[in-house]
């Protein structure tokens, strides 16, 4: 009897920390939100269409929490969580644990502004899936052997990654656009930092950022929210909070990101001969400091995305020999502190039209003429254009949230980059965003901003044009100079 009473008391104690909010308070059909008193946020999304569920745990961490000396250690930590320890039988033990719970897919990810872990499993095994992550994420000492093994894996992974054309190009962009704190955009970090990592350094990272009050758990699929709430309480209630790692915000990345328009060219082996990409990239609204402008940025990119719209038609007319069906794109990457806006186009290489001048014409046409006209002419976009843009955004959101897995993954993204409230209130905030907000966005983030203008072209095409590119001030990017830790 004593044991029974104790069990009941324990269960009651475990449930006490939960402060449930009513389902309708999220304002999102099927989405429930809770919070443990250790600060851990829980979102449960109910979708009974298939007998599976996705469990994701997300931290506001990654490159944005790095210093030059710790660049790469969040990624290393992410690996250590999978690396295993003696009690669980090492990495074979992790695989075995995942097999036991029928996990279909699982992984972890480290990016500029978040670290997350997820798995998909039969919905009947959600409790076990939560316990799996709780076991992996609870504070534990890192054995030197585990750490050395993880360093070896991460070092090899980073070296391979850093040799890829996409990594080189993005690193060169970040090196220019985020020149003051480039390590806060680079989760791969430096080999030196990874090799120098000690168990104590990893424990500092664990205790500083991998804490419940800097985390959210999102569960979606064929689940009962109240049951999941109890399971999370059982698995995670003993997890101790720590000081808020973001109590003192990072100093912002400067905007403009560059002090003058900056030109670069990357001889890119991933591009076939005959086709090149020109891109203008700007520092754009940060969700952490200017969320209002982020809605305008989304709306603006949806406005200019219209394939039959005035902007694309003008760019296609003004820039000779663009390539493909719809070669012009605009893309706003929403980030907590590293938002960027990209306007780009593909064009056909033509020896009679030097690439440098094509890039200049693109900039002049897109920014100098069209975006300037867009700002000064109230009729550039009609009310119908705004309506169509909102519908495009709504369609894109519908596509991105179609399945339970996609919903969980999206919500984890938005929670880390902004907040659960941002995600839930997005439609309402977007509905309130109009031409005045878009104009303010254009002023602040394009017309009063400075950009990096980049060309990507096949090395053979580059060789034929390199003298002209150098004369026009294009710096040539390669693997030996792209990264922030290189000269």
């Amino acid at each position, binding site marked *: 009897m004593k044991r029974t009473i104790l069990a009941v008391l324990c269960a009651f104690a475990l449930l006490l920390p939960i402060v449930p909010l009513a389902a309708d308070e999220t304002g999102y059909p099927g989405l429930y939100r809770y919070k443990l008193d250790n600060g851990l946020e829980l979102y449960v999304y109910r979708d009974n269409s298939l007998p*599976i569920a996705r469990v994701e745990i997300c931290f506001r961490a990654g490159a944005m929490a790095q210093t030059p000396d710790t660049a790469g250690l969040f990624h290393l930590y992410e690996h250590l969580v999978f690396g295993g320890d003696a009690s669980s039988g090492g990495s074979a033990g992790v695989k075995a644990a995942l097999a036991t719970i029928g996990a279909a897919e699982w992984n972890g990810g480290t990016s500029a502004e978040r670290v997350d872990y997820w798995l998909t499993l039969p919905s009947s095994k959600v409790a076990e899936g939560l316990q799996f992550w709780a076991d992996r994420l609870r504070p534990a000492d890192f054995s030197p052997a585990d750490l050395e093994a993880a360093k070896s894996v991460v070092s090899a992974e980073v070296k391979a*990654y850093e040799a890829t054309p996409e990594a080189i190009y993005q690193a060169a962009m970040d090196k220019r656009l985020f020149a003051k704190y480039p390590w806060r955009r680079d989760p791969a970090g430096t080999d030196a930092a990874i090799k120098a990592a000690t168990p104590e350094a990893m424990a500092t990272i664990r205790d500083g950022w991998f804490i419940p009050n800097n985390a959210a758990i999102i569960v979606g699929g064929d689940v009962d929210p109240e049951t999941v709430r109890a399971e999370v309480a059982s698995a995670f209630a003993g997890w101790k909070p720590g000081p808020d790692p973001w109590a003192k915000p990072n100093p912002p990345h400067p905007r403009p990101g560059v002090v003058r328009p900056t030109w670069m060219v990357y001889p890119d082996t991933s591009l076939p001969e005959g086709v090149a990409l020109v891109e203008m990239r700007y520092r754009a609204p940060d969700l952490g400091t200017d969320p209002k402008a982020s809605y305008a940025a989304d709306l603006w*990119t949806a406005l200019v995305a219209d394939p039959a719209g005035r902007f694309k038609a003008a760019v296609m007319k003004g820039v000779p020999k663009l390539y493909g069906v719809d070669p012009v794109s605009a893309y706003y990457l929403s980030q907590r502190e590293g938002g960027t806006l990209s306007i780009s186009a593909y064009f056909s290489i033509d020896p009679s039209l030097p690439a440098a001048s094509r890039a200049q014409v693109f900039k002049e046409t897109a920014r100098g003429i069209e975006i300037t006209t867009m700002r000064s002419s109230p009729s550039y976009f009609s009310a119908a254009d705004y309506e169509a843009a909102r519908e495009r955004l709504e369609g894109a959101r*519908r*596509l991105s949230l179609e399945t339970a897995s996609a919903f969980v993954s999206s919500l984890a993204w938005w929670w880390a980059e902004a907040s659960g409230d941002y995600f839930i209130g997005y439609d309402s905030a977007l509905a309130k965003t109009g031409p005045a907000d878009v104009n303010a966005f254009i002023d602040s983030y394009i017309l009063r901003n400075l950009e990096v203008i980049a060309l990507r072209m096949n090395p053979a095409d580059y060789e034929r044009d390199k003298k002209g590119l150098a004369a026009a001030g294009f710096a040539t990017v390669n693997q030996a100079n792209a990264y922030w830790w290189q000269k």
Partner: protein
Amino acid sequence: MILFEKKKMSFDSSGPSIAGRRGAALLGAAFFALILAAGCASNPRGGTSARPEARQDRPVDVAKPGSGQQPAPSIEQPKPVPMSPWLQAALASLSKKDLPGGAHLVVRRTPGRPLAAAELCIVGQAGSLQSGEDGAIALGLALLSRGKAGDKPGSLVHSIIAAGGKLEFKELSYDAIALELVAPPAALPGLLSALANALADPAFASPSFSQAEFDAVMKDFRIRRLRESRDPGLRASDRLRSDIYRDHPYAGQPLGTEESLLSLTCAQVAASWKARVGAESIAISVVGDLDAEALAAVLAPAFEGLGTRGPAPVPAPALPIKDALLLEPMPGAQGAYIRVDFSAPDRASQDYAVLSVALAMLDDVLMEELRGREILAYGAYTRLSFAAAPSASIIVTRAASAQAAKAGVERSLAIVAGGSCLALDGSGYAPLAAAVGSYKSRTLARLYAGGESAAEMAEYLARDLAAGGDGSLWFRLADRINAVKAEDVLRLARTSFGSTPKAWAIAAPPELLAPLSK
């Protein structure tokens, strides 16, 4: 272990989703999307493989009808399996309709879902193309995005975008290429009907079709092909196709080659289309909150107009894969890419489900042997094709030593063939019988996870139609996996992973291949 910024999940103004390796968004920005996708790391640990696959890189189908080579004997005939309530409900949601001219329509009704998807497939064309026609039918299918003759240029695409939808070209298998349309249920019938109407009277066959429009679509196609030629996975796949399956009609190049695409004219595409694309070669799968009867009525006029061009295509018979080691030099490649193919049981057999469970076990053993004590490769996983003549594949990516990785794969095969798999207590390897229940759960979860979205589900239905099925195989597999027994896994692992011939294709820098060529 994904290491950098993912593309954000929503609010992407570029409209179409990121195009897959075998697909291309047709609503614009396709190439840009491909470049964004190129940086994404593959998942070395995440098990995404042993489910019957919806996204394989160039499935290898084997056997040429009439080639004189005999189909692989099915290891076991189908067994009757009691139908679960889930399967009963799933089958009740499925309707198959015959459209005029022999086209097939399968609809899975999913009440309340906010999106619907359709695959408009052309089946069984790859083997019939003549020299110089490579890529013509696929290009024609992609050009359907420009609508039917008389349409305002781009109007169909604009309608899809306006409805919040997307359109992609896909190579489903060597049996089938498809246009995948995703849209809200209210908009999908009209948009699908517009595409179907374009089948009979495509804009690109009209004299007024502009060369610029043709060039733009062709260029996107050609770029995709050029990029594929740099992909070690596709190079290995092509090598298997040309060397191991060269007598099979699927050894052709349905998506064209750099050369064939360069030489194809709009008139040639139109002529090939007219000669080869009839209602008998069309299969449509639809998933969404839609009524099959009403949809069939909407689509019927288009197929009456299209008519037939010949007999219905015959699904390819199986062909045993022979032992082989093919080395494909790729200077500058990041490590070695290894692909091992072997014949799989007939899709309708219980052994097909058994193999899917055995492959899930093999996945973990591969990871342990190739990334456990020593890091021999970045990733290792298995795949099971959904095609008429199914094969299983083992894939190893970015191996530092092709020789060591090959040995690791051989060790892994021997471990499971010998009746062991990863011990569930983390103690190494143990007899696999005790783990069958867990791996069945995993296989089932993978099966479901692969069909979560309307488009994924429609793709499964379409693959089954293309392979001569009725669209229900994906649903039936769930019950079959549930019925798998340990003794069946033991038996099949012994044969499939042991004695069954294996064809290896390794794409790698020459220095990594040198030790293997001795």
